[in-house]
């Protein structure tokens, strides 16, 4: 409006400038509130200016009113912005005072551990479980028949030399030297149904306790009996196991061996996982690690278990979790397993 005096319009700008400078000087909520009271409050400067409205002409009024409102709005917005800024600054100050050293150690919940033998046994049982092998448990203390005779090892059989047996005071009762002792039990319980079981358990041998040999150790035995089971099935099943347990890139090798309770018998080796079959100390520079013994169930054993060997066939295998764990984790002393030193146990 041309009628508006320059003084008046200067007034508006001066008020706004002065108020904004004062606002910028506010550092905390109290100063901010004082500013608000002094500027936009009921008795504040802007409110006082709007009272001049009554002294103006009818033409001037709407113009003046607009300008006062514009000033009010601008300062209100500036106020909000400043308030937020002050709050943000206050929060920042408060939070930066609570900074911690994130590299200090954490407070860990107290957790326990499973024994490494349990871990390996479980891992094995899980893989065989996926293939339909169920867990069958049998006693540690057995008669000679279960451990030897019914497994095609009559008295004075040379294969008995392969295992040093603990005998009890009752000379026909032994601590099982292998989990194969449970084979006959499982077969007699389940025949003539087909069987797919794994038998984990503690076995005992009369040895000196050294870094390499123990008087007790776990074994896990597998047994499949049915119609039409072939040596090729044995190879396929165990190769699958080896790949899942040791890694998909592992190779397996089957070579002829001897167990009285299987015929044909084999040893399965896997390509050394430490040197990738290039040859190292672990595999004695052969590139292969001996992992398990296996074979087709001997007809005598099938018959002793209640199956007609003409109709049924099957395979069996056995391996030692502690030995496998030693290979897998590069351990060189088997005594650690029953030593149960917490510094050993808590590493798995």
């Amino acid at each position: 409006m041309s009628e508006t005096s320059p003084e008046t319009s200067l007034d508006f700008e001066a008020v706004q400038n002065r108020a904004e400078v004062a606002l910028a000087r506010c550092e905390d909520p109290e100063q901010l509130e004082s500013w608000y009271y002094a500027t936009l409050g009921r008795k504040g400067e802007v409110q006082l200016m709007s009272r001049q409205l009554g002294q103006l002409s009818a033409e001037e009024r709407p113009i003046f009113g607009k300008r006062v409102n514009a000033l009010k709005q601008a300062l209100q917005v500036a106020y909000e912005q400043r308030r937020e800024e002050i709050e943000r600054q206050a929060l920042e100050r408060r939070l930066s005072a609570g900074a911690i050293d994130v590299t200090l150690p954490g407070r860990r919940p107290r957790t326990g551990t499973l024994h490494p033998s349990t871990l390996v046994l479980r891992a094995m049982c899980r893989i065989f479980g996926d293939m339909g092998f169920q867990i069958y448990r049998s006693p540690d203390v057995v008669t000679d028949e279960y451990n030897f005779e019914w497994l095609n090892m009559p008295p004075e059989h040379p294969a008995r030399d392969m295992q040093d047996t603990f005998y009890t005071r009752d000379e026909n009762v032994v601590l099982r030297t292998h989990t194969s002792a449970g084979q006959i039990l499982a077969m007699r319980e389940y025949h003539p149904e087909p069987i797919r079981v794994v038998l984990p358990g503690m076995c005992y041998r009369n040895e000196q306790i050294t870094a390499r040999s123990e008087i007790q150790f776990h074994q896990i035995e597998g047994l499949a009996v049915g119609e039409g089971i072939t040596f090729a099935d044995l190879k396929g099943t165990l190769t699958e196991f080896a790949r899942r347990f040791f890694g998909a890139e592992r190779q397996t090798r089957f070579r002829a061996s001897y167990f009285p309770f299987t015929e044909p018998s084999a040893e399965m080796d896997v390509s050394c996982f430490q040197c990738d079959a290039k040859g190292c100390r672990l595999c004695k520079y052969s590139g292969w690690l001996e992992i398990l013994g296996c074979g087709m169930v001997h007809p005598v054993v099938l018959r002793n278990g209640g199956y007609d060997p003409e109709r049924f066939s099957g395979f069996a295998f056995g391996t030692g979790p502690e030995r496998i764990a030693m290979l897998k984790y590069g351990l060189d002393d088997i005594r650690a397993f029953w030593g149960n030193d917490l510094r050993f146990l808590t590493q798995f």
Partner: protein
Amino acid sequence: MRVPISWLREYVDIDLSVDQLAERITNAGLEVGSIERIGVAGAPLEWDRDRVLLAHVLAVRPHPDADRLVIATVDHGAGQPKEVVTGAPNLFPHLERGDLSELDLWAALILEGATYLDPHKDLQPTKLKGRKLRGVYNDAMLCSPVELGLGEDHDGVLLVRGDELTPIAGGRSEIVAGRPLVDLLGDAVLEIDIIPNIARCASMVGVAREVAALTGKVLRTPSTQVVQEGPSIEGKLVIETREPELNPRFVAFLIEGVEQRPAPFWMQHRLRLAGQRPLHVVVDVSNYVMLEIGQPNHTFDWGFLQRRAESDPGYDPGGPVRLITRLAEPGEQLTTLDGTRHELLPNNILVTDPAGALSIGGVMGGEESEIQDHTTDVLLEAAAWKFTNIRQTQRQLGLHSEAGFRFSRGVHPELALLGARRAAELLRTLAGGTVAAGCIDHVAQAWAPVEIELDPAYVNERSGLDLSPEQIAAHLERLEFSVEPSTSGRSTLRVVAPPHRIDVEGPHDLLEEVCRMVGYENLPSTVLASHLPPQRGNPALEAEEAARDCLVRSGLHEVITYRLTTAESEARLRDEEVSVGPYVELSNPSTLERSALRRSLLASVLDVASNNARFTDRLALFEIGAVFLPRPDSPLPEEVARLAVLLRGPRQGAHWQDGTDPGAAAGELDYFDLKGVIEILLRDLHLDGAEFSATEHPTYRPGRAAELSISGRTVGRLGELHPVVARDWGFDERPCLVAELDLGPLLGSASRAPVVTPIPVYPAVREDLAFLVDESLPAAALVEALRSAGGVLLESIELFDLYQGDKIAPGKKSLAYRVAYRSPSKTLSDRDATRLRGRLVEAAAGIGATLRE
């Protein structure tokens, strides 16, 4: 068994490298455990082809300045003879004998720059440098066997007559001056693990036969021709066999006029490579034939046998010597040639004469009748023995020998005559003896070849292969089985086992042979197509594994301990149920500390805890495992699954923050920590009806032990270990919390699923109630009373404070509970709550508890 490749080559051509051969036979069941190389690449000492040479010894003359040295002139193929200074004692006899070339003497010469093993430097590999030896420049050396890495002999240089080298060299024409030594004596020795079913391979010919079959080569068996020019053995010896089953065959040859001398170089060399120490020709021939053919044999001093026969009053002068094989008589003794005196047992089979025992059949000869230095006439025995009996004898007497090793695994009776003939001829040619005409071949029990009817379909069905009958036959024939179509008219094969195999019984054995010949690596690999058997699951094991996981979640470490212990060790528990026994005791423990199967799991866990306590303050352990309780009505013990838990040490772990945080709870683990672990286990197993009641037991500290029962059935105890028991395990004063529970009843009743209640719709009313009760009143009794008074509306009741002290009367305790009332069907009003409280207070009063206002 050690098998030198050079020896093997006498019977079979080998095209494969040593490593390939080792792999091939390993895959076929002859596991090569290690390979020792001599002279060739990969050996500890490699013989330089240009600098380690065969040299012909031409002359030996004295050293001009040294009595203890000589100068040998040798031809090493360079055109010019070479002079070598040496101190070898075995050259001195040839001093000043002029031209020695007619003697056909050969030595190993190394030239400057070659490496040898220096015996003066602990056999360190050392490079030969030229130097003056007492004024004579020397840039070559004649080597002793030890300097070449060929054994222990350092008594002189390797010095061999050409003809003694021929069998190793593979022909006279191979022995040429300047020949690289590695071509003649370079070798590899396979260490083969002889597992029971390849006992037939416990000889060079046995291994060669497998190699021939596996590589498609022809086996060359050693000649068994004997030149027999002496007077007949007939009428000089009779054999009597009392136990035909134990001694089915006894073959004897008589060789007279033998000379005791060293065996030729080639035989000594082979024996050494095979791990035997050469002695003299008679013993060496005997060992050689055993290693070569696999038939152990024994040599008697014939003169001794004759003299002993003559001194027998019942002897008919001029009559035959009688040898009797029989079982030992009560109290009979024999000193074997290793100098050990044996008390013989009634099942030991002996070779005897009427005066007594001469040798332990198949195991070891007697000292008295063994070959002496003056022996000239030798009776050679090659017999067959029953392997189970020999094994038993070896084990009983603790007497092991190379012969026993073979006989205890089985040697086919067919081999007896072959072995005897081979040994007789070698004694004739190498020991200068004359072999008597004829022989004794006493067959007490005949044997028949094993015949098997084999259905080719069986082989394919079991192996997964698809072979024609012709292919199957060809595989078996490579192993010397004879195969013909069956005469029975069926489509089967009639297979006869060769006369060196005692391990073949039925079609399954032939299946294995076919698979071995095909190669296990060439068999197909398939997934099981057989029907999946009925799936049964194993709920007991699943519950046990759930218990393990639960205890691990509670912060416990699983241990697995020895199941073998002693009664004395477990007696420390002072628990009569344990120590009264009986125990399953071992008759042959390997160590006395592990001579009986445990009756307590807790004792095992205490052992572990005690070992760990030396380096760690805080212990939280558990074991799940069996104890072994003998039963009167069974030879087998009951194997009872148990759980043992042990807690000890500070409740909280040390943390760097605790120093600045005084609020962190401190204190030692106590009974309630242990009980909490068990409670969580019971909760996780969804077990109801568990009850803890105070008990007294000698293993536990009085007043701090509880018995746990499930639905009225006791399953075990928990509490603080009695300080006296703790001390016996080496623990100090701090409390040790232990539990031992029967797992069967715990897990057997745990199959129930959790009872899940819906999330409540109506609010609860909560309030705190403190009751004053007699000190002796178990808290459980009060809770029981409150619960039954509150009914379904009393949702929970939790102890938050236990107080005893100045503020209340002596002999009293205050139990403060936070209770929650909630109805499933409405919001409880203040009046409802007041009424409920009234019921609780009234019930509490009924057992002498008063509400503290």
